[in-house]
């Protein structure tokens, strides 16, 4: 599938880690302000694909990346790319929450401070705004100064989301962001994603098919480093065109 103005366009992407060919000839358009989910068995390369989007992968020198990834039409692997500015466009939510070793307030203010916001009043506003946006404000407003690690794990994940939103990204990358959470916290995160998709392009990696179905507009099925099928959610999950997709969706392969 191709889109007229995709937010992320992947062209002939190949990733090698050491001797392993992890991603093979990936070409993919990720549409603007939609939720696109990567599904597939563990080890199929879906997380690797996600991580090529914000160039966290190529920090490891053993990784070789070929092909292009265009974000807003700009090749992020190009020579003149300012990597920090590019990463800032993408919020990242990892499998387990990793709050920074500082207070709740400082976690949210971390990004804005780095990007030059110094005024206390402005920072206060930002912190409150994003804590409200993630439904944490009422829960933590009396203890903004306490260490973020004291929050429950579900609250920590929402804090990490708020922290990512505070640098005003355009894209949210979620790498199985609910896999460490209890069902209630999972539900809250999912609700947040649905609220956020009006304003952000969201890319999720998940191995939970029901979650993919609940949340996504489009689904990419990846198997052994290759894209097998890409289409609207209902189509891929309910009426898959490929035999592998069908077997995966029905649970024959996992």
């Amino acid at each position, binding site marked *: 599938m191709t889109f007229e103005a995709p937010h992320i366009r992947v062209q002939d992407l190949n990733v090698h880690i050491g001797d392993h060919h992890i991603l093979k000839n990936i070409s993919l358009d990720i549409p603007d302000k939609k939720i696109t989910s990567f599904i597939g068995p563990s080890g199929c390369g879906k997380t690797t694909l996600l991580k090529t989007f914000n160039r966290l992968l190529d920090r490891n020198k053993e990784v070789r990346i070929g092909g292009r990834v265009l974000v807003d039409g700009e090749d992020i692997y190009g020579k003149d790319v300012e990597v920090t500015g590019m990463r800032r466009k993408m919020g990242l939510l990892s499998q387990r929450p990793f709050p920074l070793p500082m207070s709740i307030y400082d976690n949210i203010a971390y990004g804005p401070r780095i990007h030059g916001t110094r005024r206390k009043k402005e920072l206060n506003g930002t912190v409150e705004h994003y804590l409200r946006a993630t439904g944490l404000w009422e829960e933590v407003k009396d203890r903004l100064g306490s260490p973020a690690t004291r929050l429950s794990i579900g609250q920590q994940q929402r804090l990490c989301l708020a922290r*990512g939103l505070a640098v005003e990204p355009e894209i949210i990358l979620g790498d199985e962001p609910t896999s460490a959470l209890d069902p209630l916290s999972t539900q809250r995160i999912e609700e947040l994603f649905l609220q956020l998709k009006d304003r952000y392009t969201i890319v999720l990696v998940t191995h939970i098919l029901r979650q993919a179905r609940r949340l996504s507009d489009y689904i990419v099925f990846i198997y052994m480093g290759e894209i097998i099928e890409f289409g609207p959610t209902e189509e891929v999950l309910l009426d898959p065109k490929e035999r592998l997709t069908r077997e995966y969706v029905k649970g024959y392969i996992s």
Partner: protein
Amino acid sequence: MTRVRLIKDRISGKLFLAFTLLSILLVVFVGIGLYGKSVPILRQSSLSHLLFSREWKPFKNRFGFLPYIAGSVLVTGLAILIALPLSLMTAVFISEYVPNRIKRLLVPFIDLLSGIPPVIYGVWGVLTIVPFIQDRIAPHFVEFSSGYSALAGGLVLAVMIFPLIISILLEVFGTVPQELRDASLSLGANQWETVYRVVLRKSAPGILAATVLAVSRALGETIAVLMVCGNQTAFPHSVLDPVYPLPALIANNYGDMMSIPLYDSALMLAALILFVIILLFNGLSRVVLYRLERRNNE
């Protein structure tokens, strides 16, 4: 069969307890032993006189340990002051900036450095550091220095504890989850900001622990320091003065001059003072460490 297993299980538990108690008691026994041997001199002079007097005249029964305590503290302080920033920067570089391939080559090399016997560092100090201080550094500040000085001791010690601190720091930085760095980077922080605000901050308790270990090691180091620091009993007024640290005092004199009454006891007191300084320092750092960890985490 099950009974035999049960009995084995019970016995092994007790055995481990016994050995643990033994090693803890060993520390207590050393303390008690040193104290017992120091009693004669503690009876003869007051503790405050022993600790704070500069007068060291064994033939007149006057034993003031201040020059030695000051010597130990000065040499150790210098060593830490020099070694800590350098090893911190080296460890950050190796841990955060160097590709894995080269890291695997560098780390064994650093471990090798900590395996070099102290006496070799001592000889190296005598051959290079001492003349360097005598010819290049001292002339800028004083009329004459032989080069055998607190600074020489500090420099040699710094080089000795350098690999120790680095290898602990590498362990410490290694425990910081990669995802935490990723989190910071994904917010648009650059590498330096990530190191400074996340990695170092998360590692603060570990950095403190490494420093404590290095200080304890430096306080106790004997032979290498003894070879370069001059060993003159006088209260040091600058880092270019010769000093006489506690371990050097004990090593140089134990066995000699035992005809002087109370000398034996005085040396044991020196050992006790060293022992107490190290214990106190470790205890104090435990408290700080605990506070730090509680502030940072749960």
